[in-house]
């Protein structure tokens, strides 16, 4: 993430525990006493979408470009906000309902930067990082998710 920025991008194909991930990341990457605010977002798979029961999902990415886009997004956030560190973990492959898909965490001296950067990272990831979801429905048919919901306009 450049020399002046501290951060980590992980794209993983196995299930992960975001809370264990956070705990071990804090131990290995952060200095106790420096941090005043930690903001985290965890996205998990639902078992419903567009009015249908969803039994599984295949998450595809563009190896190389996805990593580069996430690095770019994280770098932009660290330029805009004063962050001590940022972490993005994103699953790919077959995912089941209840499993975490994405973890975004930002550490800062103060809450405003941590909250704002965390939300910005998540929204930027959803609109710019090349990942695609294909759902398996209860009847075993498949369909591509065509677009993400707009997080900001939906909540304002």
């Amino acid at each position, binding site marked *: 993430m450049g020399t002046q920025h501290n951060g980590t991008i992980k794209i993983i194909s196995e299930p992960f525990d975001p809370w264990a991930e956070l705990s071990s990341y804090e131990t290995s990457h952060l200095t106790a006493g420096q941090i005043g605010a930690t903001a985290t977002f965890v*996205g998990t798979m639902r078992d419903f979408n567009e009015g249908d029961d969803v039994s599984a999902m295949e*998450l*595809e*990415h*563009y190896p*190389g*470009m996805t990593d*580069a886009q996430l690095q770019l997004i994280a770098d932009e956030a660290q330029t805009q906000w004063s962050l001590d560190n940022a972490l993005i973990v*994103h699953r790919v492959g077959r995912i089941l309902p209840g499993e975490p*898909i*994405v973890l975004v965490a930002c550490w800062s001296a103060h809450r405003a930067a941590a909250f704002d950067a965390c939300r910005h990272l*998540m929204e930027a*990831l*959803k*609109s*710019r*990082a*090349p*990942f*695609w*979801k*294909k759902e398996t429905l209860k009847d075993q048919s498949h369909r*591509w*998710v*065509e*677009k*993400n919901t707009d997080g900001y306009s939906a909540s304002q």
Partner: protein
Amino acid sequence: MSIKVKCFASMREYLDLSERDIAGDGINSVADVWQQIAGDKPMPDNTLCAVNQSQADAAYAVTDGDEVAFFPPVTGG
């Protein structure tokens, strides 16, 4: 001119093409690359294109050895 082409998600299924190297004269832009691989199939309106793993539009000029990718709107997170 040699170009590596990659297609992802529903675009891979639409064109039945995951990855292919194309070569030939007359390939100057991303749109020319599309025509080489898709023939008569129109490019869907919401198609996203990338050259060397950075987003680009259909008019973007390609050069020998470039990697060109086509994919639908992203749905991660």
